């Protein structure tokens, strides 16, 4: 228990140190206990973001621009903390002070779409340097009161208070679970703000993650997650939230415990699957191991540890939030009747390291058009294009690949799943129009493990034709290399669809243009 507090205290000190190091001339907030509303107002900034998402089913096209506003929090260094969802695929950011209504363009300094946090900074630093930054509050526990700050269009602040009814890991975006405060309160005003600060006393306790008006609950990104993010952001290159790379289950069932011969005093979690090449794999963790301790924290059979403030809390929190990328953590493992220490060096798993990337933001979807066939790598944003009911409406084989990507047979040694998403009808593609969502296995005899492989393989036609082998019916299709320029011309002229060059370079056409929102519904809608 003590250990956790020490870790937190250390993080706090490091933050202060980094603030000084930034040389922002920032005086530390003298007394934030009784900050007046004016001070609060001076430390908040309205952030207006216009963003444009890509359409993954038509990867050459963007949706119409949409504009959202957020109430950002000035933190050390004059940067403004907001939810990441608002800056996803941003095209223009404008900051506005609440007290003086001064406006200035901003830019994204650091963004994390997994933890849904971003730092925005004004183009001209003077805009916010003399504004008092919010410091993070102490971590809040169950029963404490938090205040959500809303801002009226004229800049006045309205606050809503509520009690924390639970603290546990909740979904931030797809498959990303982080500490969440659940506050029982309602937000009276609907200003469509995608970020709202949550304060405790005069410190920042969190940001609203989502708001359930019917249930009068507000889910809040908890201070420890923000603390992790800010610390990482201040320490040079942003590295993200770490993972250890394994799946685990509970060891509650006595039948299971007797079978794996874990005596009753031993409590821990059952390792189901170790992701190949991940941190746990490198440390020697094996499926079937029982992890009894992570660092100094003893684990229960439920997969939780005893947190001094929140009570029983998922062990995921220990790895993803209380540790940083590069930290060495000792897992105590029960294997073959003995306890064994394994040092795991945590790492971040980037979205492009997944077989099916969970998100693709701030960059255009990569695609190729070869003889009218549109080729893309399967990704979550592609599946989500099937609408609100994508879980039922998206093609089932693609959903299955996405859901089971860590368990699919590994013998194919592919980095990505390349699919023909559609065939653009031209006189040359008659008879191919109905093809969609079929997996490309080989091109010209070469195995396809990523989109770039297609470019390479197209350099060497077989017997004068490009042979496209598919995993599904009709299994094989041919294209005439000599006809490709004619097909491309029809597509660019009749359909006005740009064709990415088939050269050997792998760069997408618009490297810094982006795609899709992480899975979050924020407050105030």
């Amino acid at each position: 228990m003590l250990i956790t507090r020490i870790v937190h205290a250390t993080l706090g000190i490091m933050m202060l140190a980094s603030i000084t190091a930034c040389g922002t001339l920032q005086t530390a907030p003298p007394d934030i206990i009784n900050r007046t509303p004016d001070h609060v107002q001076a430390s908040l900034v309205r952030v207006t973001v216009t963003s444009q998402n890509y359409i993954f089913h038509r990867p050459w096209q963007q949706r119409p621009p949409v504009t959202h506003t957020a109430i950002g929090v000035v933190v050390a260094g004059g940067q403004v903390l907001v939810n990441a969802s608002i800056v996803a695929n941003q095209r223009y950011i404008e900051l506005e002070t609440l007290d003086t209504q001064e406006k200035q363009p901003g830019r994204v300094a650091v963004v994390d779409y997994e933890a849904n946090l971003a730092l925005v900074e004004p183009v001209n630093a003077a805009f916010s340097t003399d504004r008092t930054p919010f410091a993070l509050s102490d971590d809040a526990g169950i029963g404490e009161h938090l205040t959500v700050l809303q801002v009226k269009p004229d800049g006045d602040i309205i606050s809503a208070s509520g009690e924390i009814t639970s603290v546990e890991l909740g979904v931030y975006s797809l498959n990303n679970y982080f500490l969440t405060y659940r506050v029982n309160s309602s937000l009276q005003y609907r200003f469509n703000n995608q970020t709202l600060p949550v304060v405790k006393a005069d410190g920042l306790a969190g940001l609203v993650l989502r708001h359930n008006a019917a249930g009068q609950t507000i889910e809040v990104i908890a201070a420890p997650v923000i603390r992790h993010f800010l610390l990482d952001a201040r320490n040079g290159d942003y590295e993200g939230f770490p993972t250890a790379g394994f799946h685990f289950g509970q060891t509650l069932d006595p039948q299971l415990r007797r079978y794996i011969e874990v005596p009753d005093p031993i409590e821990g979690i059952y390792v189901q699957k170790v992701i190949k090449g991940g941190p746990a794999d490198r440390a020697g963790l094996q499926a079937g191991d029982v992890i009894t301790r992570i660092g100094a924290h003893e684990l229960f059979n439920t997969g939780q540890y005893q947190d001094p403030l929140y009570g029983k809390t998922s062990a995921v929190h220990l790895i993803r939030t209380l540790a940083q990328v590069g930290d060495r953590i000792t897992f105590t493992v029960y294997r073959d009747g003995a306890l064994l220490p394994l040092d795991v060096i945590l790492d971040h798993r980037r979205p492009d390291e997944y077989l099916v990337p969970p998100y693709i933001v701030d960059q255009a979807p990569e695609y190729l058009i070869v003889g009218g066939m549109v080729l893309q790598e399967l990704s979550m944003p592609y599946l989500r294009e099937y609408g609100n009911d994508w879980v039922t409406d998206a093609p089932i084989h693609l959903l299955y690949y996405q859901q089971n990507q860590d368990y699919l047979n590994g013998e194919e040694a592919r980095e990505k799943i390349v699919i023909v998403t559609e065939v653009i009808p031209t006189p040359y593609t008659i008879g191919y129009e109905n093809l969609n969502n079929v997996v490309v296995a080989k091109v010209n005899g070469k195995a396809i493990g990523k989109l770039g492989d297609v470019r390479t393989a197209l350099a060497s036609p077989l017997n004068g034709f490009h042979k496209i082998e598919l995993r599904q019916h009709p299994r094989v299709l041919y294209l005439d290399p000599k006809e490709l320029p004619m097909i491309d011309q029809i597509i660019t002229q009749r359909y006005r669809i740009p064709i990415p060059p088939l050269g050997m370079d792998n760069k997408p056409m618009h490297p810094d243009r982006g795609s899709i929102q992480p899975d979050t519904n924020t407050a105030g809608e």
Partner: protein
Amino acid sequence: MQLSISSVLFKSGLILLLILCAMADVVAAGERIDTLRRSLVRIYTVAQSPDYSTPWAPGNASEGWGTGFVIAKKRILTNAHVVSNARFITLEKEDDARRYEARVKFIAHDCDLAMLEVLDPDFFKGTQALHLGAVPALDSTVTVLGYPIGGNRLSVTRGVVSRIDYRGYAHSGVDAHLVVQIDAAINPGNSGGPVIQEDQVAGVAFQGYSGMVAQNVGYMIPTPVIERFLKDVADGRYDRYVDLGFQHFPLINATQRRALGLGPGDYGVMVGEVMRAGAAYGHLETGDVLLAIDGLPIAGDGRVKMGNDRVMLHEVVERKFKGDSVALKLQRQGRKMTLTIPLNTPWPYLMQANQYDELPRFVMYGGIVFQPLSSGFYDVLPNRSVTLRYYFSQFLSEELYLEHPEVVVISKIFPDPTTSYLGGFTYGIVDQVNGEKVKVLEDLAAAFARPSDFYVIRLVGDPQPLVLEAGAAQEASQRIRRQYGITQTAHLKGSIVPPDWAAVR
């Protein structure tokens, strides 16, 4: 009670209609009907369909009415769906108040036809057998007879032949055969009734569209399908349709034709997916070009000319029987060759087909019920995980039957002290028990029969083992059976998996 008939007749949005016509318009026709009505039979069926969510239970009984007709040799034809899962059948005929008990003699669920026999030989007194005619021509007039909703007496409708095509048969859900579309009004209850042209049977009315979807679209089973059924059962049993077990890809793309070494013109289809459980496997290869089937040239869209019609090349195979072969002329990598392929029934289709007249297979052990994935089981699932949907819908196309010819699912876990922590395993697919692959339900039953301290069940895609302690589980089995009124712990009859596929290879 009529409603229960319509539920029988409505499958996948298709309505089965019984046709009764108001024949008052033409006097001469009235005489004709006086003869025809002596062939008509009204069928009353009490069916009991299994409840896949409680596979040991007797199932739900329901009543239904349909139509049938007498053909030569004192046989009665109707639709399979009129008498599927029947426990009790009676027949009524025109001008006779008595009801005669009947039995199903042969039933063909893949082409929705059944033959009935009557226990009392007196039934046929005064009846007149109908003869089968030819496939009617487009735009010719047909008359439909039957007992649809809206009254109890014979109904007659008339229409023209609108289309002759190859279409899905709703009763099995996976079969497609020749159908004739007519525009005569068809309503639930007409199923199994004859469609008459020139006093001969042109087909059996069997399905249609709901009025919500389309107007005046009714379908009949044409005589080639009926004749095939009669010929198949001539040896005393019904053997199902046979197939080549591959998918063809039309060759209407000029580039594809050139790459495959074909000249311009309208001929040939490419072999696409070749099913490993199909007859063509080992004979045909992806990329082969089929040029002719049994001497009939194949056009680029996969059609062949039979008689006056252009029909899909499957039609050639459709008219064959178990044990028959088909001759294919093809071109492989520029070389022409001829192959003779013995036909079979590709069994993996049956997993997705609606099953009738079979009780659900299951095994219960230690409070856990295991059932193979099937159409009936899939239909009653309260929620369908991505994995279950994938295994059901992609069973053929992703060749999932190679590893799991039968997809054994944990369908229910009865609450009991031994199952307190097992709830999360519900709807998982069993991969192994104690390290042995479970390919079919029998493997699972055999694994539980082998003495062991633990039974460790590994599920597909979920590496947490489900562990049962043998002693505790056996005790629990007895307790749970008593507590939940489970009359039977296993039913293993009626597997669709052929023995050579069920064996571990």
